[in-house]
């Protein structure tokens, strides 16, 4: 098959995928989205003859538009635009999990600093303020006092992009020094790791230590439900152990798996490519063709 890879930066994750695809004899078309011009009616030349496109855009804005264009051109794309739309925005992500009955941290959204401060006071200290768009643990604030809350809110309102004036206020979850990242394909866990740190943020991008993690039946159930809630696909489902249950804090749609690849025995890239082969074959059976 001919696999298009939408990218603007080739990370270790993309190299693992490229290597696995080429080892299996597939054609790979690397599509640097920075060089593309997306016409409303005609697909760019790079999209001709593709059996499937994998969205590995680093920038959320590009991911959202590029996947939408793929679908407009009739090119099968994973993950779908709808999944990207839900996962890329923490508000939509949380709403989807809540609607599906998946335990997720209690959250308020407010549009003014005054309303946000009321939410913060209602949650009590500490609580958490997150940007609605963003990743890798950046611009996350654990708020320990009213003084800190007032300062952070003023900074966001004064210095921030308009998206920072949507205040996403969340309860602080006491976790056991780690959270759990599960790589799942259409709800089936492929590999899982615990990310541990002395810091309250346990993102691998923040330097958390990673180790394999064995999922119990409840975690597997929640991963399946969380995946379905956002439309399925290749996802990174993040859970925290909370008391005797879990809470799912987010689902990532352009999941990085290089840290997982080093932490688990599973051939992660191999499983992803298995799924791409199945998905492309299924799309071909459904008669989806590129219109370029």
């Amino acid at each position, binding site marked *: 098959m001919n696999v298009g890879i939408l990218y603007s930066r*080739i990370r270790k994750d*993309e190299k693992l995928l490229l290597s696995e695809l080429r080892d299996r004899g597939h054609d790979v078309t690397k599509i640097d989205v920075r060089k593309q011009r997306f016409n409303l009616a005609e697909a760019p030349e790079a999209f001709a003859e593709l059996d499937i496109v994998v969205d590995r855009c680093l920038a959320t804005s590009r991911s959202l538009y590029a996947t939408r264009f793929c679908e407009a051109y009739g090119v099968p794309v994973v993950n779908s635009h709808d999944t990207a739309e839900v996962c890329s925005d923490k508000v939509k992500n949380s709403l989807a999990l809540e609607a599906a009955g998946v335990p997720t941290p209690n959250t308020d959204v407010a549009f003014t600093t005054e309303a946000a401060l009321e939410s913060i006071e209602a949650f009590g200290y500490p609580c958490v303020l997150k940007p609605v*768009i963003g990743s890798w643990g950046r611009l996350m604030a654990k708020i320990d006092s009213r003084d800190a809350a007032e300062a952070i809110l003023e900074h966001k309102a004064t210095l921030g992009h308009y998206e920072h004036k949507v205040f996403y206020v969340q309860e602080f979850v006491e976790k056991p020094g780690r959270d759990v990242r599960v790589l799942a394909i259409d709800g089936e866990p492929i590999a899982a790791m615990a990310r541990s740190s002395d810091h309250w943020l346990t993102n691998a991008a923040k330097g958390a230590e990673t180790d394999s993690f064995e999922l119990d039946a409840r975690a597997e159930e929640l991963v399946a439900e969380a995946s379905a809630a956002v439309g399925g696909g290749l996802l990174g489902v993040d859970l925290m152990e909370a008391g005797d249950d879990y809470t799912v804090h987010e689902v990532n749609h352009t*999941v990085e798996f290089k840290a997982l690849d080093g932490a688990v025995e599973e051939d992660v890239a191999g499983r992803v490519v298995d799924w791409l082969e199945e998905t492309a074959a299924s799309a071909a059976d459904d008669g989806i063709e590129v219109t370029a």
Partner: protein
Amino acid sequence: MTECVECGADVTLHDDLEVGEIVDCTTCGAELEVVETEPPVLERAPELEEDWGE
């Protein structure tokens, strides 16, 4: 081996280089983007944008 566009030091490159990959200059620490592989050509990599991530 090619030259860092930031400081001019030699940058050692591995065999399976990919266009779009980022390599670090071990001398000045600059992030460099691979824009050609045969022969290797490096440019200064774009700065981190706020909406980057997974």
